[in-house]
């Protein structure tokens, strides 16, 4: 305890270490929050759920804070209806009896549009309650300057989705301009550089039902170009989920891999030094072979041929790192310590080999290895990201590496979706820096030779 306090006191001399510790602490707290707020199964289900769950999100939308940049005013998603579910006055539904057999169910959506750019898509989700005769819904668009544009007529059988951009008739009526542009464009703006007309728009869904109890409900989604804190990916998934869950995964992977490799390496090195002779020579030879083993290609092969689970990868990674170059460093220190007189004393009173190794030899050098251990954590976090970029990420879990991988596969940089790359990259960098800064400071604390360098 006093040793820990002493270390902390020594660390507080370094501003970078304090910053690093703050980052690590924040990450740990945030990870705990994430795991509690979004349980594992929920996270996996949502991430793997495909477009069904994320139907009302725009595709590859930038995060909302893009609008904070000067001169940027991208539309947010507008979701309205069905009428009656909320007290919104913007969605009005009324029934008009036309004749004995026919009733008009009219839903009117009214909304303000103030963005400087056009929405991504416009969709209307229709559901109906009827027995035999299917309701007929006709859609009309009213612009702020009073133009009325007929969209289309649909018969509603079960849930129907009207995607405005796929209505060919409509596109023809708009002179070949895509629906989401044509419907919002200011007629006064130049044709090759259309600007949206700001103001109050209205969509009327007039449903003609042919039965007394029949009903039609409609939900309008005007997909924006920005979404949430982190934006969305090509499958409309909210990136905050992956970015949040990436943190506990990265921390767990990095910590476990670092603990596994450093502890096993330490034990192997101690055993080699203590027993010497053939044992030591064998360990040395294995280390040399291991140095030449192409670790990443082997990991990739394991991922391809056996399992992509992140925990299998972790196991293989640790197994491949047991005889890593770290053995040479620890061995050099062990060789020096081994000559200390208290080992002779221990032997004299009859301590067994493993008692000496685990109780006297290893504890002596743990402090010198702590910095290396801390510095190793981010490199393992990046190993996970590397595997994910190679399409070998865990099949279930959302991780930062997988977000990067998706972004790369979908040419995010080429198409200007920088947020998609920058967000996971920034988090990776932040976690890497946090551990590295602490590790480097620890290095100076534990290796007095470096202290004033």
């Amino acid at each position, binding site marked *: 305890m006093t040793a820990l306090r002493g270390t902390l006191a020594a660390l507080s001399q370094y501003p*970078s270490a304090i910053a690093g510790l703050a980052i690590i602490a924040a990450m740990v707290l945030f990870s705990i929050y994430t795991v509690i707020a979004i349980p594992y199964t929920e996270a996996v289900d949502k991430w793997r759920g495909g477009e069904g769950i994320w139907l009302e999100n725009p595709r590859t939308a930038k995060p909302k804070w893009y609008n904070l940049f000067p001169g940027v005013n991208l539309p947010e998603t507008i979701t309205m209806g069905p009428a009656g579910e909320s007290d919104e006055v913007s969605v009005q539904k009324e029934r008009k009896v036309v004749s004995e057999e026919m009733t008009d169910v009219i839903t009117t959506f009214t909304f303000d549009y103030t963005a400087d750019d056009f929405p991504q898509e416009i969709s209307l989700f229709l559901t109906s309650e009827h027995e035999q005769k299917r309701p007929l819904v006709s859609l009309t668009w009213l612009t702020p300057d009073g133009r009325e544009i007929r969209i289309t007529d649909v018969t509603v059988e079960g849930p129907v989705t009207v995607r405005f951009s796929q209505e060919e008739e409509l596109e023809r009526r708009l002179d070949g301009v895509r629906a989401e542009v044509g419907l919002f464009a200011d007629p006064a703006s130049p044709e090759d550089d259309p600007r949206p007309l700001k103001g109050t728009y209205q969509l009327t869904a007039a449903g003609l039902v042919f039965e007394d109890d029949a009903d039609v409900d409609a939900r309008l989604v005007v997909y924006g170009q920005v979404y949430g804190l982190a934006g969305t990916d090509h499958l409309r998934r909210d990136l905050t989920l992956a970015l949040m869950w990436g943190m506990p995964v990265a921390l767990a992977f990095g910590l476990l891999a670092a603990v596994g490799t450093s502890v096993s390496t330490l034990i192997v090195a101690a055993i080699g030094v203590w027993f*010497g*002779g053939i044992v*030591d*020579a064998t360990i*040395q*030879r294995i280390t*040399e*072979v291991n*140095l*030449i*083993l*192409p*670790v*990443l*290609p*082997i990991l*990739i*092969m*394991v991922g*391809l*041929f*056996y399992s992509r689970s992140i925990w299998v990868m972790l196991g293989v990674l640790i197994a491949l790192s047991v005889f890593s*170059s770290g053995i040479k460093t620890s061995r050099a220190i062990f*060789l020096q310590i081994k000559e200390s007189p208290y080992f002779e004393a221990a032997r004299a009173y009859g301590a067994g080999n493993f008692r000496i190794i685990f109780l006297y030899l290893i504890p002596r050098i743990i402090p010198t290895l702590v910095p290396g251990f801390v*510095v190793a954590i*981010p*490199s393992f976090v*990046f190993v996970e*990201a*590397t595997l994910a*970029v*190679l*399409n*070998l990420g865990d099949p279930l879990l959302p991780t930062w590496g997988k977000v*990067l991988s998706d972004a*790369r596969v979908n040419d995010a*940089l*080429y198409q*200007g979706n*920088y947020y998609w*790359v*920058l967000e996971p*990259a920034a988090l*990776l*960098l932040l976690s*890497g*820096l946090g*551990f*590295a*800064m602490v*590790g*480097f400071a620890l290095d100076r604390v534990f290796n007095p*030779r*470096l202290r004033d*360098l």
Partner: protein
Amino acid sequence: MTDAALPLQPGAESADRPQTQSTLARVVQYTGLRMIALFFTVLIGVYLTILIANMGGHVDEIRKGYIRESVAISVGIDPEFKNMTADERREHIDQLVALQEKRMGLDQPFLLRSFRFLLGAMTLDLGWADNMSSDSGSRQVRNIILERLPATLLLFSTTFFLLFFVGIFVALYLSRNYGSRLDRVIVGLAPTSAAPSWFYGLFFILLFAALLGWFPFGGLVSAPPPDSIINYALSVLNHMVLPVTAIFFSAIFLGIYGQRTFFLIFSNEDYVDMARAKGLSDRVVERRYIMRPTMPTIVTGLALSIIGLWFGSIVLETIFNWPGLGRLFYLAANIFETSVIVGSTVIYAYLLGFTVFFLDFVYALLDPRVKVGGSSGGQA
């Protein structure tokens, strides 16, 4: 690298007077032994690779399934077999499959095949690819891989030399100006090396290709390739800037930090003070008393970092579309082209072996213990 070693020679001779065997013989003996050791190391590494790639015949099953499927399809669409009964056709397919499996050597026990494969791998006779071919149209794995090797070597050798020389000179400069602003900046930047090269590659692409448009997004040459050799070379150079910078950036700060620290530790030794007291110039002190004892450690450190860089190349080349080994490996992994995957892994093992051997050789030239013939530090 010899440039850095050369200035050390005079010091070496004066220090190593009492020798019984000639220096050359010792260096040759040492490197010879290392070569044999490394050969066996590569052998074991390659055999492990084969074992992993084929443990439990997992890959064989995939290949057998693939053979059966393709045979069944070709029989199915061939009008000649239209009139066969289902049983006849099945029998015919079985015969064809057995023939194909025999052709691929799948009917032999795994142990036998693994040694055959090992021999093939060590002699670079890596068999044929099922679904990949080299740009020149060859399906031989050796040709596919060797065609990609120059691009990788070009990229990495350039970066290695840059890293080595820039690293040493900047580290020396910093150890001389310890505590200066530049020194503090570089020490502060050392943690950036936690991220691999491809990670910085992404940023560089974003900044210099996407936003500024100074350099191409990726590839080896512009398309279509320029006709004249000079323009071709310039185009390759232009495409190399970003990947080289990415690798360089990911390794340089930690390298400088490590070397600078070594230089500083060794410049605090008593014999350095003694040399200074004798009135030797700073340059001489640096060369003979500081660089000399640190060189072996620095070379070892470089060996380790280079090994790390080789693996980083897989993703880096993929990100930059650099047509080298790494990208080949990535493509092969994506379509399960086992022979190419194993072949590339073998080549990686060889490359690592050569890297370690080369550095061992440099080590032998630098480390006085090899020349004098003392034990190499082991204390068994």
